[in-house]
């Protein structure tokens, strides 16, 4: 019953929100007070992704559409509001978003094909061991050269189930961006045949490379293989058989990482991939990202490291158990090379995302349940990997993204028109309420102003923190919420009239009417909130954006109703003016009440 307390609380909210808005921003007052506007009102960035395929042909229509949906999900998952994702022509996907940081969308086109492959063997991938000319036989690359890849024993050793073995290694890049350098002149744009490759490197080198069965240590052999060092990464290296990619030291990790996206996306082929400067020769993929039911970023309890926890679906769990059994007992064919065993003498299994290895832990048990991928993740990269796995792999791979600025789809005049409409709407509501409720109209007026300020502050704040953007439809939504906010006043004031007509004094009527109207208002707002929450949880894209705005508007309405309207009415009821029929808008009702009493 202390109206002052509620008003003070509301004041505190205003001060805090105001401070956040003002001090959270940078630049002049205009920049600090600017909400983020949507693509339709102020324009933004347009990112074009071009599909690349192993054979250079455009992808099928269905594949492209499926990729569009996955990319849309990924973009939305980054909290970028109201992105528009369309396919253009037969191989492009165009993402338009309200202005975002340039690199924010650079890796949405990442194929995100995850495979688990047993590590058959590994070697140093930084190039020929020494200067190719000088024979240094001692410099054989061996696992010893890259101990980081496999060493640290995991605290949760052996045993079945529970956490997967997991130690991060060297320098994993969990979210590899395909940063091909298409600048190189004369680079092939499609896969080459063996004959073409042979012509490129010369018969001698080709035959030498073809015949390798181990990483060469003989300087003369290395010298013969030198022409392979001139192969372009993108398609030429990709076209080499995996054995040659592995054995030829001139095929460095630096090159392997730059292979065309999707270079090793065939599950039934052996593959070569790198982690940092360690080159791994990998078995065929026995478990794929599609076997994963859910990927969740987590912080591992014992080590405090970030991991991505996986649960499998369907027969994925069986496949995973089989793979870990094979690795644990080293029973598969081919067997893991002695050099590629971990500290405990067990095989490694690499999680290969696109062309790179995320992590290659030693398998320390036959794993029958949830497993984890570890790596040097930070919060964002762990989340990105989880998102990529959850939203599925792209059937199509995309080259480097090209982003350009775009102007508004609707244009400045729509923004002005929207604001003008909001202004007119507000003015009409206020005129109506003064006409109908006279002095009480000022309560409505003040409440609307407060609601407007709160909404605006929240828009600025959320735009900054969550990337919430205001579109034209959003403005319309807030215009509607103006009316709905005023509605709750009508409900209350009419109740108030009822109470006064029944002979209560204004002061007790304010109380009683409040208790009754509160129930109605809460019910009605609960429905709106329910609609907002359900739409937000189960929808995506513009519908989810709308739901967010609806929820925000409803919550702010409730806040103003409870913290402003009720206390201000309680204060009003104490003042004599409230009882004056001429100005309170309760005039006739009051007069009648007096007559009847």
């Amino acid at each position, binding site marked *: 019953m202390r109206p002052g307390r509620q008003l003070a609380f509301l004041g505190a909210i205003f001060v805090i929100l105001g401070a956040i808005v003002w001090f959270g921003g940078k630049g002049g007052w205009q920049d600090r007070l600017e909400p983020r506007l949507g693509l339709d009102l102020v324009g933004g960035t347009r990112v074009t992704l071009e599909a690349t395929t192993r054979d250079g042909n455009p992808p099928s229509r269905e594949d492209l559409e499926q990729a569009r949906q996955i990319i849309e999900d990924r973009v939305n998952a980054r909290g970028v509001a109201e992105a528009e994702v369309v396919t253009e022509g037969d191989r492009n996907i165009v993402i338009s978003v309200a202005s975002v940081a340039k690199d924010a969308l650079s890796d949405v086109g990442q194929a995100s094909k995850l495979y688990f492959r047993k590590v058959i063997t590994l070697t140093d991938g930084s190039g020929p061991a020494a200067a190719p000319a000088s024979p240094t036989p001692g410099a054989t690359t061996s696992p010893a050269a890259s101990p980081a890849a496999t060493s640290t024993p995991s605290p949760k050793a052996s045993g079945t189930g529970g956490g997967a073995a997991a130690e991060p290694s060297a320098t994993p890049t969990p979210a590899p961006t395909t940063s091909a350098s298409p600048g190189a002149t004369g680079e092939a744009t499609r896969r080459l045949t063996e004959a073409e490759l042979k012509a490129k490197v010369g018969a001698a080198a080709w035959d030498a490379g073809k015949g390798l069965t181990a990483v060469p240590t003989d300087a003369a052999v290395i010298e013969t293989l030198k022409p392979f060092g001139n192969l372009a990464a993108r398609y030429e290296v990709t076209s080499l058989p995996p054995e040659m990619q592995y054995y030829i030291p001139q095929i460095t990790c630096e090159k392997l990482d730059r292979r065309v996206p999707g270079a090793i996306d065939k599950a039934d082929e052996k593959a070569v991939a790198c982690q940092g400067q360690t080159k791994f020769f990998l078995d065929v993929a026995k478990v794929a990202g599609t076997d994963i039911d859910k990927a969740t970023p987590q912080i591992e309890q014992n080590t405090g490291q970030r991991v991505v926890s996986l649960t499998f679906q369907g027969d994925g769990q069986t496949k995973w158990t089989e793979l870990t059994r094979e690795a644990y007992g080293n029973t598969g064919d081919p067997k893991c090379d002695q050099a590629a065993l971990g500290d405990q003498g067990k095989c490694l299994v690499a999680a290969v995302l696109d062309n790179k290895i995320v992590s290659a832990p030693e398998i320390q048990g036959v794993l029958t349940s949830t497993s984890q991928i570890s790596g040097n993740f930070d919060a964002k990269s762990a989340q990105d990997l989880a998102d990529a796995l959850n939203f599925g792999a792209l059937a199509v791979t995309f080259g480097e993204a090209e982003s350009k600025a775009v102007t508004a789809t609707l244009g400045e005049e729509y923004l002005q028109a929207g604001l003008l409409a909001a202004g007119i*709407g507000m003015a009409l509501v206020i005129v109506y309420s003064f006409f109908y409720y006279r002095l009480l109209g000022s309560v409505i007026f003040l409440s609307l102003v407060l609601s407007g300020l709160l909404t605006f502050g929240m828009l600025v704040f959320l735009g900054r923190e969550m990337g919430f953007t205001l579109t034209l439809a959003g403005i319309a939504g807030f215009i509607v919420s103006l009316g709905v906010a005023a509605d709750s006043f009508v409900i209350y004031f009419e109740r108030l009239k009822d109470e006064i007509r029944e002979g209560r004094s204004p002061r007790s009527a304010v109380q009683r009417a409040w208790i009754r109207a509160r129930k109605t208002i809460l019910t009605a707002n609960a429905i709106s909130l329910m609609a907002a929450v359900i739409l937000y949880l189960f929808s995506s894209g513009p519908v989810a954006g709308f739901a967010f705005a609806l929820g925000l508007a409803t919550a702010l309405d409730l806040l103003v109703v409870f913290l402003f309207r009720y206390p201000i009415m309680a204060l009003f009821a104490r003042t004599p003016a409230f009882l004056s029929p001429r100005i309170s808008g309760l005039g006739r009702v009051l007069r009648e009440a007096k007559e009847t009493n």
Partner: protein
Amino acid sequence: MANFGNIANRLYRGEANLNIVGKRRLWFSVAGGVVAVSILALIIFGFKAGIEFSGGNEFQVPVKVGSLSQVEQVVTDAVHAVQPDAKIQTGQQIGDGTGAVYSVRTPTLSDTETTQVHNAIAEKFGLDPNDVIGSRVSASWGEQVSNQALLSLAIFLVAVTAYLSVRFEWRMAVAAVASLVFNLIATAAVYSIVGFEVSPATVIGFLTILGFALYDVVVVFDKVQENTRGITGKSNETYAEATNLALNQTFMRSINTSLVALLPVGGLLFIGAGLLGAGTLKDLGLVLFIGMGMAVYSSLFFATPFLVWLKEMEPAIANHTKRVLARRAAPRVAADTPAQKSPVGAPALAGATPKTGAKPVQAKSGGAAKGAAKPGVRPARPGGKRR
């Protein structure tokens, strides 16, 4: 005029004695007719899906040819030459500097139409046809988005039914949701008849109606619940009469809330259609205006009569109604005097005004001059007529 003023006055006090519930059959036939026409309209006219739903074509012209509005005009003319009623979207400039282009999206064109438009644009600007880039763009609002939206709509309906069942009772929940569905169908039909293009903005407008439509119904049902609490224990009014009274008492409130809510949307529609002539604001304004208008109608004239119909199937209420009517038929003479002031001149239906009739005695003293309009001396409502 005076007469009108009088009605407004009585409306204002909730004393207009409009017999809404009694004319249930009328409202149900109106609603049935509206639904039938709506479904027919939806089948015949369907929706004109915007480019966001159906995909289309995109033409890119280098910025050196002039301004964006010029390009829009040329593209519009070129497209209208092959598809006279096609709606061209507002264009955008992509990139800046030398490589910048204007991009304009059109509805889907066939291959020959595309070539025609392509050449027409190039010719108009004196460009080499290769400088104009034409491509097919897909829908941005995929089926997935629609399916998810429909799913969440279904979940919402279930959840709101559950909530209202707990907050009120299941019959009220059913009546409220039925009125919501009626609302949505009718709004969709009007939109389909008017033939505006469906854009993401209009879908969102449509969803906005969800919450609002129920808001109105909740306000009315809240009063109904209050008026009919423990009604079976009393024998002076039937459920239908008490409900009708609640409707009358909230009538002005409903009109007021609707007016207040419709005013800003009216502003939106006015600005959208009047100032800008076309586009998102107009579409959105129309959807909201119709939807919210329908919401007011259905909360008063559909949801409440529907609720009474449901309630009267409940044995307890049915028996109570019979009892009240039987009792009323017997002591006819015992009716009190104010009955003579009844505007309709109906036979006295004693005590049908439980709420405001709280102080009838005092009211008499000062009330002679004011007559029937006074609270307390309010005559019985002719609600009994309905049988």
